């Protein structure tokens, strides 16, 4: 058990904290068994003990860390109270996401939403606070840093889904359906993010100075985009970032989160775009 952040507490206190952590872990094992997750017993598999300890440390981190509390039981209580609040908020977030979904969602997004539904239904903030949802291959825009608690990672994913719902809902129905028809080809929905693709289409249209009434591209439009993005004077990344910001204003979603999402989405295409521009064929980027 080496989870005590030694820079934050004195060596003298470390022994005391270690004993308290041991006692907390013992209590967690009892509690886990009493909650019916396993049969009662004086011993448990090491892997389970490690998971329960991770949960204890995660909970204490949320409450300010081991160094903050003389009595770690109070730290646990404070951390668990915070976790329960976050759990309630995450469930509310999920309802919002669910009720604002576009009519059709791609398979990987549906899988991510189902994974979140299962996660929120079974999340155990008392014993396994650190467990994160398994959203599979759904592209998460902002890498989830070591979240102190699993529920925080769920909240971050839900935030992304919410913004995506808003963005997808901001385009005209006809243009959106026209785009969807093209997006559905070649099983893109299995692993690609529809919203990100939608944004890059919109970015492309704005770069050409065209309206967003039609979101798909003709051959000559792709050629024009190739010339524009390859032209000297302004790197493709700068053009994408600028156009993404303009796009959010165009669809009346210009809050900082929406702008950040749109710019990240546009920039996420940059590696593929760079290769595509070399061969002068951007048909896989701008559908």
């Amino acid at each position, binding site marked *: *058990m*080496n989870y005590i952040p030694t820079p934050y507490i004195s060596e003298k206190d*470390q*022994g005391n904290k*270690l*004993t308290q952590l*041991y006692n907390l*872990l*013992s209590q967690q*094992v009892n509690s886990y068994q009493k909650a019916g997750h*396993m*049969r*009662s*017993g*004086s*011993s*448990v*598999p*090491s*892997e389970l*003990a490690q998971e329960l300890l991770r949960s204890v440390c995660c909970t204490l981190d949320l409450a300010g860390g081991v160094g903050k509390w003389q009595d770690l039981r109070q730290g646990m209580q404070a951390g668990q109270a915070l976790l329960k609040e976050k759990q309630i908020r995450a469930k509310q977030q999920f309802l919002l996401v669910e009720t604002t979904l576009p009519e059709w969602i791609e398979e990987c997004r549906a899988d991510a939403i189902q994974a979140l539904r299962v996660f929120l239904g079974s999340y155990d903030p008392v014993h396994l606070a650190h467990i994160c949802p398994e959203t599979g291959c759904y592209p998460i825009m902002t890498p989830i840093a070591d979240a102190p608690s699993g529920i925080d990672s769920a909240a971050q994913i839900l935030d992304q889904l919410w913004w995506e719902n808003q963005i997808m809902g901001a385009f005209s129905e006809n243009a959106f359906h026209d785009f969807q028809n093209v997006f559905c080809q070649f099983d893109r929905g299995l692993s690609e993010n529809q919203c990100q693709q939608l944004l890059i289409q919109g970015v492309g249209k704005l770069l050409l100075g065209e309206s967003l009434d039609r979101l798909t591209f003709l051959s000559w439009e792709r050629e024009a985009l190739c010339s524009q993005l390859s032209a000297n004077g302004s790197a493709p990344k700068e053009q994408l970032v600028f156009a993404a910001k303009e796009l959010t204003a165009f669809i009346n979603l210009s809050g900082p989160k929406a702008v950040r999402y749109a710019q990240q989405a546009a920039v996420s295409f940059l590696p593929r775009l760079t290769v595509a521009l070399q061969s002068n064929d951007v048909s896989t980027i701008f559908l």
Partner: protein
Amino acid sequence: MQELSLSKLQLARAKEEIRCCDELNRLYGLTLTEADITELVELRAQALQQTGRVEFGGGILPKLIRAFCRSPYVDKHTYAATLADLQDAFYYFKSESQDLFSDDELIEFMERVFNGVAHGATDVLTTISLEQLCRWARNGFDDRYADEEAFY
């Protein structure tokens, strides 16, 4: 340093819990010396490590003592060795069963087999499979062992 202190604390607690069974042992003419207790506690640590388990509190030995001290097959000369074997068997079965049984259930199974078909031979317990243990302890009745009273 702190981990060593914690280990020492755990060992001391485990020994104390075994000492608390002295009176019960004496009722059945059994004794455990300090050397026996120390060795049993050390063997417990080894058994836990080998089976990939972690234990809180004093351990399973007090329960094993309470269950097996009255067995007609327990001998005062081999009492410590018998407890060591029973302890090994217990942690083995606990892991093999993936914690499907509570401690009390598993000890009950072991007791029925030890006092029944095994006739006090710990090598029967330490070499049989979990499946056999459960079958002998629960369903028990088998034509080959029809004369064994332990199954009724």
